[in-house]
């Protein structure tokens, strides 16, 4: 028995030593590879089938657009875009654009990229059956036609200043010579879906389920060969696991270091990592439901009163919340304007944190603590509100806990409901909530405000779920979109939103991206983080 024990422990020690040493072959590969940590697996990175940022990140390297947004992210006008598949474009009239494709553009199987591919893909995107959420973004496009192999003519149903943006940005062309042979119902399970053939600077390598996706550089790419030979998207669903990957050198790049703020110190302490800060298009807010959860035709019994909404805004220390989560990397916005938005500079300061003012407003609205239980009441009804939070978001959970404690001081009872994403979304779309913490990714254009804050968007799933409707801002926004001098109009819109308090706007963050220092010439476009990887280089 003793002998066996000795043999066993000896073997265990040997095995242990062997296991604790990294595999040497991997080191050579590391020098030529960029490993990006990601939270979502790219199981189906096919434009028009995409859901989720994990798929989009990979698709952005496989599939080019006609042109991409320029460095200043201007969405209006015909210029300021960077050519990709289209080498040039010109305007025929106020509703017609002509794009000339780069004759050297090739699919990864060697076939040239033709106008037929563009027409085919717009057809998919505009068909509600196949386009899914792409369809509404290209709703103003009336027709797309091919002229020969190299020219595409796009006509619009109206004249407006974001026509080029709509024509080039939303739709990434697919290879029609492969796809026309595959019935749509079989596309997701086809060989094309598991081995996509694109036209971007990287070609598909392999996917190892639940672990990573590997892409290889297209060495003879028509826009110039990428200098990084391989890009690996490595999946870890837990944010902590992703950070660990970065800190142990198992990943080279990670998007979204903060929150939690504590991560910043850990990453900064690692001399091998460089931090890049980028403004993004996200705004986080505490949304008030203005319609009754039981009957959408009626105003909300508590939050329908603008005084109560304003009291809640004053009663929440948005600065402390934002600072505790993001440190200096977020600001308290005045309205639904992210850091990327140019109209951000027009707005005044956000309403101050002022519990005294909040108490006055609540009193005005008739809320008093008549039974001495510390919670205000009116007509026998306590001032109690539920707060919906998606279970997957640790930061929103923390914000909820802070707001709960702060509003308790005012005599407002907040019940937190931590919900799984599907329930959260279902409740929100059915209007069955009092308050929720939302984090919205806004469109790059200010007109994106219309999607979630106009009367027309009330009742649209995932849009204006709080039921906020102000005819005044609707008409102001309408004017702003056609006016040559829109700034004062947008300023008025923001002031009206501030006064109506449809939400307590909490944070407009920057994002922090950590990248290993051996990567050089790193540029990060704010909207599609990794799309310019092909232009990075690696120090030897």
């Amino acid at each position: 028995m003793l002998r066996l024990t000795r043999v066993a422990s000896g073997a265990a020690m040997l095995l242990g030593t062997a296991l604790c040493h990294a595999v040497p072959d991997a080191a050579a590969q590391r020098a030529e590879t960029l490993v990006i940590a990601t939270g979502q697996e790219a199981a189906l990175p096919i434009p028009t089938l995409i859901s989720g940022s994990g798929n989009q990140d990979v698709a952005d390297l496989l599939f080019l657009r006609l042109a991409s947004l320029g460095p200043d992210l201007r969405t209006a006008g015909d210029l300021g875009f960077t050519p990709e598949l289209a080498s040039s474009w010109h305007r025929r009239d106020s509703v017609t654009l002509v794009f000339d494709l780069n004759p050297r553009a090739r699919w990864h199987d060697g076939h040239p990229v033709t106008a037929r591919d563009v027409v085919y893909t717009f057809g998919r995107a505009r068909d509600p059956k196949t386009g899914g959420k792409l369809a509404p973004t290209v709703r103003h496009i009336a027709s797309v036609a091919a002229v020969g192999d190299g020219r595409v003519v796009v006509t619009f149903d109206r004249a407006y200043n974001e026509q080029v943006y709509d024509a080039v940005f939303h739709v990434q062309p697919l290879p029609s010579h492969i796809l026309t042979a595959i019935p749509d119902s079989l596309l997701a399970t086809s060989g094309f879906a598991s081995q996509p053939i694109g036209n971007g600077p990287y070609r598909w390598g392999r996917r190892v389920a639940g672990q990573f996706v590997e892409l290889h550089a297209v060495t003879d790419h028509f826009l110039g060969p990428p200098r990084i030979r391989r890009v690996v998207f490595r999946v870890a669903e837990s944010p902590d696991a992703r950070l660990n990957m970065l800190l142990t050198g198992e990943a080279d790049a990670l998007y979204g270091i903060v929150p939690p703020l504590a991560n910043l110190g850990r990453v900064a302490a690692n001399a091998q990592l460089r931090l890049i800060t980028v403004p993004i298009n996200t705004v986080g807010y505490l949304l008030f439901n203005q319609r009754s959860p039981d009957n959408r035709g009626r105003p909300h019994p508590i939050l329908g009163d603008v005084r109560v909404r304003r009291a809640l805004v004053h009663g929440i220390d948005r600065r402390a919340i934002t600072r505790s989560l993001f440190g200096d990397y977020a600001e308290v916005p005045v309205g639904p304007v992210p850091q990327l938005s140019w109209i951000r500079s027009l707005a005044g300061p956000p309403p101050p944190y002022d519990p005294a003012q909040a108490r006055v407003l609540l009193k005005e609205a008739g809320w008093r603590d008549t039974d001495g239980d510390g919670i205000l009441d009116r007509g026998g009804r306590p001032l109690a509100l539920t707060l919906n939070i998606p279970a997957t978001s640790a930061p929103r959970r923390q914000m909820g806990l802070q707001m709960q404690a702060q509003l308790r001081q005012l005599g407002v009872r907040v019940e937190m409901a931590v919900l799984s994403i599907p329930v959260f979304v279902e409740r929100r779309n059915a209007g069955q909530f009092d308050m929720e913490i939302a984090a919205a990714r806004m469109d790059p254009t200010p007109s994106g405000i219309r999607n979630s804050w106009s009367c027309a968007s009330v009742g649209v799933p995932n849009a204006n779920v709080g039921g906020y409707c102000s005819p005044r801002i609707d008409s102001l926004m309408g004017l702003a979109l056609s006016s040559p001098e829109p700034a004062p109009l947008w300023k008025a819109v923001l002031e009206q939103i501030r006064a109506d308090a449809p939400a307590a706007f909490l944070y407009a963050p920057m994002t922090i991206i950590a990248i290993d220092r051996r990567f050089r010439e790193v540029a990060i476009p704010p909207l599609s983080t990794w799309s310019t990887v092909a232009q990075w280089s690696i120090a030897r």
Partner: protein
Amino acid sequence: MNRVAEILRHVRRSPEGRLGLIILTAIILAGAAGPLFLPDPLAQPDILGGANLAPGTGHWLGTDQLSRDVLARVVSGARISLTVAFIAVALSITLGAAVGLVAGYVGGWVDVILMRVVDGALAIPRLFLLLLIVAVWEALPLAAFIVLLGTTGWFGTSRLVRGEVLRLKTEPYIQAAEALGARRHRVLFHHLLPNTAGPVLVAATLGVGNVILLEAGLSFLGVGIRPPTPSWGGMILEAQEVLFVAPWSSVFPGLAIVLTVLAVNLVGDAVREAVDPQHA
């Protein structure tokens, strides 16, 4: 009930059982009296300056990322965890014993149907079962959560009791009681039920440890006890992202779970020994 007293005597006499009882008593006392001496477990005194403080005077186990006192939360969590576990297990044992008694004693198609359903339910892993059911409520009240833990834990007990009843039915004294015309409920409650107490008690004590772990796991997945009520699993979930910066806020709740479950299982072991002395 003599049987139970006898088992308890045995537990007190065995060293492991005694250790378990001592730890458990200490935890219960701390949970009951501790909150009187400790800060409010929900208070967030200084979110910007007082978060993630290391253990020291003032905060013996440090503070979490919302500047709440970890010791106060761990102690307060003991109260929640133990209450949830004891009530849930009491519920599942009662249900299991009832179904087992009926199935075993009545027999026939009642038995067949009950046992098929129990088998089917047993085949679905309890964690899956709970995750599926928890989703039915968008925001589960504590009472409902306890009921849920109780109603998903009785399947095994019912099989156990049924087996015991089937065995007892062939015992001469039960057959004698029936032959003498004792009424059904008298046989059930005076003869069968007390004699199943041993195995049921074993299942109950081990069940408590199990439920504590399960509750912690569900709270860790964010579907258990609702914040801000402190629960150990929820504390670990919330502290997960600052594990490296403030390890104390997840290490201590974890230790509390281990200590409690260990204590309960030590007691459970001693109970088992008392019930089944051959394998002591």
